[in-house]
């Protein structure tokens, strides 16, 4: 087959139908970028974590040891424990309370990104999806004690140490600070960026996390003698990666609070540490080699991966949903546009055959005519997709301390290959069909088709008491049912995206509001921040109670016993968060997934992780060991809380427990009372010995990042949908350009023409709205429930049922908006088209 005439025919065809070629180019760019973005987001969650392990040459496990239980020689001898391949440490560590100014909503400063972070990004540790879900793997792990994330609490302006100005506050953060002379070590390298490792006194390095003070910022170690101030000189490592901060040995000595137990960090790599079971066995071997009580707790690389796995688990369901919508839309509009473009050229195909082109040459020419702009669009789309997706990958990347991630190379190859195949098929099928037609039939097929459809619609529409351009436009889609169905599908996907995004906006905001582990009371009055005490004294409790009775605006009060001692246990559950309240606590508003909040003695509520770990359900009995006593309770409700296995019950249920005391009082306000004013007034009443603060969410950055991702994905889908409508209406308008000339010759004004074309998309838009609303509600519910499943936390009903009828009506109008936006350009073209040119077209 001679290629010369084919290439000439194809390139001439592209020049002749330049507008169509540009449309193909634009659609394929958008579709390719959308496909690349969707697939990359779906597959990226593990890339960053694996890259992080490679970059940081990290340890498998970090073990906190009690130095009073083992000598240095005994610790060094663990190098010989079977399975241990490398050891580093001991690096002395201590828990300290840092205070710094609340930061604006952005992740670690100086590092690129701002991508989405799930609740785990704040330091919480939902179960890593990489870990087996069976409870047995945890039973051999008594040292894996409960480890709360660094607590972030904001005090309002005017409080001791509070900054002035509206919205600014001080953050108190309890962190494990490690004494380490250099970032490099025999086992791991802490990658420091930006900034540098401490070079002298008064300097500290922190890991990147939401709300961290910037490099150059100041933190006050309020738990240290003299409350010294340190300068943050750099970020190191990655969030959750075996340390909450590092200082030089000389600094550490000065900071360590008096009377704190001597603890240290030991880092290990093992021959086998690929899953939780193996790691548990490794720890068991270590413990066996050390004196009893030496191993206080440990963290593994699985927990670090869990930080981002949980974050990506949180976002994976809606990324998947939007990616599917985007891919389907991309396929739909590419097929519709490319095959429509080939069909529009049928008449020319007949002419080519008439002058001697063989059927194969004709088919090849028309595949090439569609392929030239499509190939350019694919190349540009890969570039555009990479530009689009790289910022979205930066959130997990910066948390793990690796450079910005990109779409993997295999996706950069697979997506264009897939898109080329799609375009090729979409063009080949009609082109091969036309190639086989006799010339005269191809010419006849290329004329504006009179399918016989739509006549009844026009008759009916003519009877409507509406302007004639409107009724003609409304009836037009019925003449081409297949194309109208494609237009409907494009609008439908766009509308589903908009409606689902609105629901996700509400759900995610609610989920992040549910998140804080401090409980959900508005105000908390209790132990001042920085105090080594964990509970209020009896006198302080009485003082607070009296003040609350006297303080106007106090509506509800619950005593919070957040320091339940280790003597309170559940058999078989080692990492347990047990929360007890005194007084009525039902007003706190813990989000319920099932059952009810406890209302009587011997009732408890549990979160999903607890129920999964124990195999219990709502309604089952539960035995709590309180010292030597056994308390039989009943699980009456399932609570949404992604903070590890957790229980809630009344103080009365636990009975007398040595060491149990009130940590703070949770206060609910009367309607209309300002939390800031109430807090300030109560602070003045109570004086400096009692800390009063608003139980802050501290979730602004995480919420903003996740919602920004939802918004970006929605905008992509809506743009793609509008492009689909545009291409469909453009093809339809060009097909009927002769009719357009007739209308104009009879006196249809440009404005009437614009209205007529836009009205063509109303029937499919209305149909799309009717389908989109229930479809989006369903998809939203599935997505949000899946978030709960993947984060192992379940999902509260309040985060699932978020749509209100008036809102839904408004959201349904998005289909009309998408349709109108997509139809505007072809309508404008039709309105501006020269009548004489249109009349000459056939």
């Amino acid at each position, binding site marked *: 087959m001679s290629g010369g005439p084919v290439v000439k025919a194809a390139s001439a065809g592209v020049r002749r139908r330049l507008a169509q070629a540009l449309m193909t180019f634009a659609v394929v760019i958008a579709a390719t970028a959308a496909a690349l973005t969707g697939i990359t987001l779906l597959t990226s969650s593990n890339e960053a974590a694996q890259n992080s392990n490679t970059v940081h040459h990290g340890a498998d496990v970090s073990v906190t040891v009690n130095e009073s239980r083992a000598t240095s020689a005994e610790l060094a001898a663990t190098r010989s424990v079977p399975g241990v391949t490398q050891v580093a440490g001991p690096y002395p560590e201590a828990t300290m309370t840092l205070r710094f100014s609340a930061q604006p909503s952005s992740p670690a400063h100086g590092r690129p990104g701002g991508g989405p972070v799930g609740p785990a990004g704040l330091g919480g540790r939902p179960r890593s999806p990489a870990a087996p879900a069976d409870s047995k793997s945890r039973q051999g792990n008594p040292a894996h004690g409960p480890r709360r994330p660094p607590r972030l609490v904001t005090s309002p302006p005017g409080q001791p140490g509070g900054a002035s100005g509206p919205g600014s506050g001080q953050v108190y953060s309890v962190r494990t600070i490690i004494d380490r002379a250099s970032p490099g070590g025999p086992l791991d390298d802490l990658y420091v960026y930006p900034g540098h490792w401490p070079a002298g006194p008064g300097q500290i390095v922190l890991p990147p996390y939401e709300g961290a003070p910037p490099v150059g910022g100041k933190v006050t170690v309020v738990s240290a003698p003299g409350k010294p101030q340190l300068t943050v000189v750099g970020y190191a490592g990655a969030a959750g990666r075996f340390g909450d901060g590092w200082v030089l040995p000389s600094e550490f000595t000065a900071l360590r609070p008096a009377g704190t137990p001597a603890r240290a960090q030991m880092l290990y790599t093992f021959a086998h540490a690929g899953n939780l079971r193996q790691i548990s066995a490794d720890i068991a071997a270590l413990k066996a080699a050390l004196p009893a009580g030496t191993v206080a707790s440990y963290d593994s690389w699985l927990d670090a991966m869990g930080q981002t796995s949980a974050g990506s688990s949180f976002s994976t369901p809606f990324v998947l949903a939007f990616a599917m919508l985007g891919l389907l839309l991309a396929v739909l509009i590419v097929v519709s546009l490319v095959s429509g473009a080939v069909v529009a050229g049928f008449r020319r195909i007949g002419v080519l055959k008439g002058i001697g082109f063989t059927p194969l040459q004709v088919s090849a020419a028309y595949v090439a005519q569609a392929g030239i702009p499509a190939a350019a669009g694919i190349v540009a789309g890969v570039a555009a997709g990479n530009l689009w997706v790289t910022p979205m990958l930066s959130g997990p990347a910066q948390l793990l301390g690796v450079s910005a991630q990109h779409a993997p190379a295999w996706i950069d190859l697979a997506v264009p290959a897939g898109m080329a195949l799609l375009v090729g098929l979409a063009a080949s099928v009609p082109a091969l069909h036309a190639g086989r037609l006799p010339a005269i039939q191809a010419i006849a097929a290329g004329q504006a088709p*009179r399918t016989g459809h*739509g*006549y009844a619609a*026009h*008759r009916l529409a*003519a009877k409507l*008491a509406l302007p*004639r*351009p409107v009724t003609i436009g409304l*009836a037009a889609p019925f*003449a081409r049912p297949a194309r109208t169905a494609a237009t409907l599908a494009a609008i439908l996907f766009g509308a589903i995206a908009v409606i689902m995004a609105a629901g996700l906006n509400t759900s995610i905001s609610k989920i992040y509001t549910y998140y804080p582990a401090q409980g959900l009371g508005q105000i908390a009055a209790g132990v001042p921040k920085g105090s080594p005490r964990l509970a209020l004294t009896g006198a302080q409790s009485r003082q607070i109670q009296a003040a609350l009775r006297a303080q106007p605006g106090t509506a509800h009060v619950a005593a919070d016993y957040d320091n339940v001692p280790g003597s309170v246990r559940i058999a078989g559950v080692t990492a347990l968060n047990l929360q007890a309240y005194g007084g009525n606590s039902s007003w706190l508003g813990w989000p319920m997934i099932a059952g009810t909040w406890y209302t009587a003695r011997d009732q408890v509520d549990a979160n999903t992780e607890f129920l999964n770990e124990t195999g219990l359900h709502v309604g089952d009995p539960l035995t709590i060991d309180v010292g030597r006593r056994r308390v039989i309770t009943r699980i009456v409700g399932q609570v949404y809380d992604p903070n590890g296995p957790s229980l809630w019950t009344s103080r009365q249920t636990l009975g007398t427990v040595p060491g149990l005391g009130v940590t703070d009082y949770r206060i609910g306000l009367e309607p209309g009372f300002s939390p800031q004013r109430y807090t300030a007034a109560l602070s003045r009443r109570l004086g400096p010995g009692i800390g009063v603060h608003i139980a802050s969410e501290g979730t602004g950055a995480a919420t903003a990042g996740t919602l920004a991702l939802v918004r970006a994905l929605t905008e992509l889908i809506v743009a793609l949908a509008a492009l689909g409508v545009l291409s469909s209406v453009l093809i339809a308008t060009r097909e009927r350009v*002769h*009719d357009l*000339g*007739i*209308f*104009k*010759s*009879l*006196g*249809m*004004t*440009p*404005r*009437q023409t614009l209205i007529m074309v836009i009205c063509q998309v109303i029937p499919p838009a209305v149909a799309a709205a009717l389908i989109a609303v229930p479809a989006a509600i369903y998809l939203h519910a599935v997505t949000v429930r899946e978030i709960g499943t993947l984060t192992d936390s379940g999902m509260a009903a309040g985060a699932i049922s978020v749509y209100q009828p008036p809102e839904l009506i408004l959201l349904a109008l998005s289909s009309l908006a998408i349709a109108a936006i997509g139809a505007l350009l072809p309508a404008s073209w039709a309105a501006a088209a*020269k*009548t*004489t040119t249109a*009349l000459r077209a056939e």
Partner: protein
Amino acid sequence: MSDQVCAAAGRSGRCPPQADVLLSVREVSKRYPGLGGPALDAVSLDIRRGEAVAVMGPSGSGKSTLLNLIAGLDRPTAGMITVAGERLEALSETRAAIYRRRSVGMIFQFFNLLDDLTVADNVLLPAQLAGVRRSQARARAAGLLARLGIAQYANSYPGRLSGGERQRVAIARALVNSPALLLADEPTGALDTANGEAIGQMLRDLNAGGQTLILVTHSPDLAARDASRIIRLTDGRVVADPRPGAGR
């Protein structure tokens, strides 16, 4: 009334109409970019109310271009066209469309009917676009269909009619708004002899009733039968006009 008075009214103004002159074309030229010579070159002519004028000439002489300019479908590159005192070259697209609705009825060689609409809906369309009251428009359309002998096809679709019947539908559509000007571009070009003669007779009857008619045709017989005046164009110029335009 002189052209100077008309010119003084400005491009957007209305000219005082000359007695019984409905259409005035003054030094109109039309050039298309990229094509060699002008499609029309300084054409001037007047057409009085009630006249039947045939415009003849070889292919490419500018006949259809002249008709398109008179219909307001296109604009001259130079010169002035006035219909019932309204200057066409100054009209916006919207005003030109409104002018076509009110003042012009067009009949095309290949009918240009809308196949999705019934015969009645085709005829009604100009009236609906002009905002004529529904009942009034329907009555007028029914009357025209009856007068042209095709009332029985009101609910049929154009695709099922013969060429002659389709052209009658097109004539009815062109007349529904009682236009001042009826423009016919090769109205019998796609018809057989019998139908062509029947259509020709219809046009004569309309003209006899006072309808001003401008007819573009290749057929000398049709021109001789249907027109009282024949203007010949060659290469965009008027080469023969029994009554040249005023001002020459």
